[in-house]
């Protein structure tokens, strides 16, 4: 009986350790190279384009756009989900994505500037990562 309990505790600890290792590996592999904190992402508005023009973020992430051009720009989602004020040089706009989906957006001052934020499911347990509830833009 005591052996049983010891074995069960030992197995439990082993399971916890393995789970912790799996979690760390998965967390490390999904960290984007440019972000500061795990759930924050940066997009630079530079030379009349959004850089990068496609960003994949987890649900709950915040994206911050910074205007590095000498021209004002805006960040308008195609389907009215988010809309910045006009950003002068060095001004920023942030938006927290609470729903999964594909968010196309553009600059309303220079509408040829277009880009996308892909907001993925945060479920990493067993199933491979899948895009759920793909939003259709209104364009």
């Amino acid at each position, binding site marked *: 009986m005591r052996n049983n309990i010891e074995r069960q505790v030992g197995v439990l600890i082993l399971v916890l350790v393995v789970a912790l290792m799996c979690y760390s590996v998965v967390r490390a592999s999904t960290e984007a190279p440019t972000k500061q904190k795990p759930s924050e992402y940066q997009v630079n508005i530079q030379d009349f384009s959004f850089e990068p023009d496609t960003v994949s973020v987890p649900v709950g992430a915040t994206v911050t756009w910074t205007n590095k051009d*000498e021209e*004002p720009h805006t960040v308008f989602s195609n389907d009215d989900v988010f809309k910045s004020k*006009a950003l002068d040089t060095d001004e920023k706009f942030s938006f927290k994505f609470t729903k999964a989906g594909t968010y196309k957006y553009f600059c309303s*001052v220079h509408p040829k500037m277009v880009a996308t934020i892909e907001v993925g499911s945060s479920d990493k347990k067993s199933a491979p990562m899948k895009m759920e509830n793909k939003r259709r*833009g209104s364009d």
Partner: protein
Amino acid sequence: MTNESLITENLNKDGIDRRGFLKCMAWAGTGAFCMLQGGIMKSFALGDPALHKVSAGNSELAFVQISDSHIGFSRAANPDVAGTLREAIAKINALPVSPAFVLHTGDISQLSRPEQFDTAEQTLKDIRTEKVFYVPGEHDVLDDNGAGYRARFAKNAEGDGWYSFDTHGAHFIGLVNVTNVKAGGLGNLGAEQLTWLEKDVKHLKPSTPVVVFAHIPLWSIYPQWGWGTSDSEQALSYLKRFGSVTVLNGHIHQTMRKVDGNVTFHTAMSTAFPQAAPGDGPGPGPLKVPAEKLRSVLGITDVNFIRGRHTLGVTDSPLDSAM
């Protein structure tokens, strides 16, 4: 970029002296007056005494176009846009014939801020002219879709700020193509404005000279940089029956011209800062030039309507030119 690339191939076989026109275009940057009279190009260098006979004696209507003052901009390309605007006004006030009015083809302000509109309006009061007419640029409709612009500059206009007026037997139409733009799109007039335009010109005689002014070019110059209007063809279709149509635009901060049948298209220099030639750089941003060159790439446009001639004489005049 050669001057040839500025001229469309799409000319009617109506005897227009294209070689002469191209030669004149090469002078345009240094202040030449090019006038089409019945398909023949007449050109005068500024300072030529014959020019005074043309503008002072025969001119039935003289007006000026300025554009892209960008009040509020203050970066390397021009730290003093209010100063260069004042120089442009001094140039207008020194013209041999005072303009009956001035058209401002938009981007009055840099950021649609009330104090920027105020400064522009106050500065423009120094022009010796009866009235300044405006159309908005994309910089004038930020954050409020143009409500602030309209309250100040387009109180009696329709929709997003379009209107028309008649003077000296000519019909002037101010159009707005910077609101309701779509992702990936160009300038946009929209169904409501097009409907209004069709009705507005319906009862005019074909001999009435028509002048259309709007911020973004109403012809396709360089779509990759947003230099065009997606539904301009439909607007121009309502003007096909007129003998003389002149389209005056801004937005690209450099002069370009195109003649297409009865329509002469013209874009003006900015009074604030130049932009690169189409495709020459990453985008249509403020272009820094050596300080001593700045005033050669900023300027005004003088337009003369001479009764009996069915086209208008359009002259681009840089700030540093003698006239």
